[in-house]
């Protein structure tokens, strides 16, 4: 086949598929969000934003992202640099650290439930140590701080691996000579990290952060498994609109709000970590 | 019988003109080298002949058949690639036999031909190995054997020796030349290494900025470069140039000296190879800047009338930095170029 036509033939299936299942539903969701049956309206948005749970769920989502993402970034960077200079057991350690990559948010929620539930392992440990006499019901409305902590821990536990993988791959692309050159010029390990690793890692940091932040706004099953309705987030509210309230217009409006926040943060990250043209490895 | 004709071939990549107006005929069984610096279009031309690239304009004929619209497999060619392209998932045997299998030749014929070419390239011991277990030189041999096993009319080689170390390159150069002469195929060989070109070619096509500047035998290209580019590209060190002004009657003033030359009235460039200079009583006054003893001779870099000028002299001479030499050019080796066209002037 002609080399001019062939590439288009090859990308046709993906393009068609994404148009049908990505762009088209996107248009649909937008249409649904901006209409209540008779023409263009912002009623859906007014309704969901005006609902008393909206500020709480927005605040919860943002707080959770703000608590989780920086910790994950720091942890992933630490793990990546540790792995980078490991000689023995590197593969095993990397495998162990990437295990959560394959674990769904629902499973992660259930795993941490085993720790935090009333008859769970945390209570067993605390009573074993004599700290508490009776098991505490941590995941209840009396302990909102613990609920938040449990969700944050589960998220950090589950989703640091994806950043780790991206960063390890990124560090692997940085030629060793740069470090050797820096060492010859007298840079300390910390300086080598801040002056060489971090700047050259920018493309990977970008990807990792964008992906992670978007996932943070989609947080859903972990929250449901651990907090139930105690800790409303944007995604669980969307789910509630669709199923409990059967209001798909409002659900669509929520979806667009989540989308807008995600895009906003993506642009901020891309802008903050942009790589000057020609300054790539 | 495979004569190759390239007629009016041009190639554009977007707005970049990679090749312009290429016309070249390569005789049956000739060893043609395409020589030039990187980016001159030599590899593009080879790939157009192979069918890996389509020419924007022009025609390619192989063995009296127009082939520019045929895929590579139907052109009767075989090719040796710069990075050898030995298939990593196949043994050496299956690599050499790959093309034969594609032609659906019977097993015993494949075996016979693979063993014969492997013997020719001295790799019969390696037939069971995979590419990862071979050295660069061995991979090179597999790549050549794979091409030869096809018994092609034309064999195309794209800088096949450029990834080998110096010693191996010299060894393979001679071996490749011998094997190809034996096989009676037409060969086109792309290189940027003038020593390779000089030592292997029947004819060299020197390319520059998408054009063939000169296509001639190695000694012709060396002795009678058709243009200043060729004179400056071939030879190590390259030819010396000095501005020359007409003094009437076929006499020319070069750095204050009067020399015989063509009868022209516009200024020319005088050119001489460094090895065609001798110290003498009369000649060009050269102020010595650097002396490099190379064993067999002495490479002396000087300044003549403010211009850079090199001479290759007998190593017995005692020359020191700061000396002034008087260098006489060997009259029958002097060449003249028109600075307007940069072409040689008879």
């Amino acid at each position: 086949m002609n080399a001019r036509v062939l590439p288009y033939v090859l990308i046709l299936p993906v393009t068609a598929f994404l148009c049908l299942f990505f762009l088209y539903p996107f248009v649909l969701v937008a249409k649904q969000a901006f209409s209540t049956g008779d023409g263009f309206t912002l009623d859906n948005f007014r309704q969901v934003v005006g609902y008393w749970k909206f500020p709480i769920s927005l605040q919860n989502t943002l707080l959770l992202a703000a608590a989780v993402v920086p910790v994950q970034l720091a942890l992933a960077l630490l793990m990546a640099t540790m792995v980078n200079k490991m000689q023995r057991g590197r593969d095993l350690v990397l495998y162990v650290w990437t295990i959560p990559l394959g674990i769904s948010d629902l499973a992660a929620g259930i795993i941490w439930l085993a720790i935090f539930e009333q008859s769970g392992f945390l209570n067993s440990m605390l009573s074993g140590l004599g700290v508490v006499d009776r098991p505490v019901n941590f995941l209840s409305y009396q302990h909102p701080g613990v609920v938040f902590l449990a969700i944050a821990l589960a998220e950090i536990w589950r989703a640091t691996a994806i950043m780790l993988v991206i960063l390890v791959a990124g560090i692997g692309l940085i030629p060793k000579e740069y470090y050797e050159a820096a060492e010859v010029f007298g840079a300390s390990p910390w300086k080598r990290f801040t002056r060489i690793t971090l700047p050259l890692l920018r493309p990977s940091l970008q990807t990792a952060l964008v992906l992670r932040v978007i996932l943070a706004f989609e947080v859903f099953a972990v929250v449901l498994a651990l907090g139930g309705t105690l800790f409303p987030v944007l995604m669980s509210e969307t789910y509630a609109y669709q199923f409990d309230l059967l209001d798909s217009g409002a659900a669509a409006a929520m979806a667009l709000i989540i989308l807008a926040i995600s895009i906003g943060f993506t642009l901020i990250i891309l802008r903050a970590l942009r790589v000057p043209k020609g300054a790539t490895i | 019988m495979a004569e190759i004709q390239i007629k009016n071939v041009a190639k554009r990549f977007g707005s970049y003109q990679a090749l312009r107006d290429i016309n070249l005929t390569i005789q049956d069984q000739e060893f043609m080298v395409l020589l030039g610096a990187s980016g001159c279009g030599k590899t593009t031309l080879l790939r157009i002949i192979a069918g890996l690239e389509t020419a924007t304009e022009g025609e390619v004929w192989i063995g009296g058949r127009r082939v520019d619209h045929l895929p590579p497999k139907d052109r009767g060619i075989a090719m040796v690639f710069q990075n050898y392209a030995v298939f990593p998932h196949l043994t050496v045997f299956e690599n050499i036999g790959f093309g034969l299998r594609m032609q659906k030749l019977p097993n015993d014929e494949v075996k016979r031909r693979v063993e014969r070419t492997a013997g020719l390239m001295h790799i019969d011991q390696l037939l069971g190995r995979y590419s990862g277990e071979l050295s660069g030189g061995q991979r090179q041999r597999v790549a050549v054997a794979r091409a030869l096993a096809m018994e092609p009319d034309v064999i195309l080689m794209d800088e096949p020796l450029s990834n080998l170390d110096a010693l191996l390159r010299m060894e393979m150069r001679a071996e490749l030349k011998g094997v190809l002469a034996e096989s009676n195929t037409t060969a086109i060989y792309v290189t940027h290494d003038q020593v390779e070109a000089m030592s292997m070619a029947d004819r060299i096509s020197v390319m520059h900025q998408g054009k063939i500047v000169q296509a001639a035998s190695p000694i012709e290209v060396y002795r009678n470069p058709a243009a200043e580019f060729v004179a400056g590209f071939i030879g190590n060190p390259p030819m010396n140039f000095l501005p020359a002004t007409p003094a009437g009657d076929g006499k020319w003033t070069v750095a204050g000296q009067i020399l015989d030359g063509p009868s022209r009235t516009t200024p020319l460039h005088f050119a001489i190879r460094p090895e065609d200079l001798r110290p003498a009583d009369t000649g060009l006054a050269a102020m010595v800047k650097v002396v490099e003893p190379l064993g067999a001779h002495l490479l002396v870099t000087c300044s003549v009338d403010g211009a850079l000028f090199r001479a290759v002299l007998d190593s017995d001479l005692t020359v020191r930095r700061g000396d002034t030499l008087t260098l006489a050019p060997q009259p029958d080796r002097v060449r003249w170029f028109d600075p307007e066209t940069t072409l040689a002037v008879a």
Partner: protein
Amino acid sequence: MTTVTTDVAAPDTRRAGRYVYIAAVVLLCAWVLVPLYFLLINTLSSPETVNSFPKPFIPEFDLGSLGFFAGFAGILSALKNSILVAGLTMIMSILIGAPAGYALSRFDFRGKEAFRLLILLTRAFPLPLLALPLAVMFIRTGLDDTVFGLSLVHTTLAIPFAVLITFSLFSGIPLELEEAAWTLGCTRLTAFTKVVLPLILPGITASAIFAFVISWNEVFAAAVLTIENRTLTAFLLQNLDTSPLHLKFAGGFILVVPALIFIFAVRKYLFAMWGIANR
């Protein structure tokens, strides 16, 4: 004097640093593994133990919970649905995605940048949200509450990864190998099947497995798009507030195990896949 002290001190600090380093590695491994171990204890304990207090810190190897899980109404069909959806997603995302990955790695064509942008864009979207309008569309086309319908949505999730990963895999195969095959008598297609495919097959398998895991783990779209034919994730989510603890833990365990095996199977490729895929 001073030189002597530094000579003695230097190895000491270095050794201390080394211990800190090893301790940190072990601690971080424990951080990942211990919660998994707790899940394992719960799964391999009888329902009574799971609901009792305090918890033992070693499993009693009782299959009661798993037995209860297997006998719970609807769970086996949910498991079957999960496998079917993930399998379909795996096949579709590779069959649809790999050609595009090949096109991106081998050709320069008009609109290539726009196409790449479309692919990257999908990664910047909270894709499960699109399940909402699709639910309506599926009801119209009869795809609602079907394994195939859900796998279409999951394929949308997996396709950007499939395209970018296969793109990086194909880019790792030198074009020269294909060209050599062409000059040796292959067409584009036979060069692909005889040279490229054998070299790329392990990588393709890895990205297929990755697609499987993406689908296997997906919760939101699965919960939105299925009612009768729930996948395991959707089933567990639906019954989170009503189902007993031992069912949740056994279900969580069943969710985790295949993912663990698959990540183990593709561990070699994870980093290579992400290395180039993020350019």
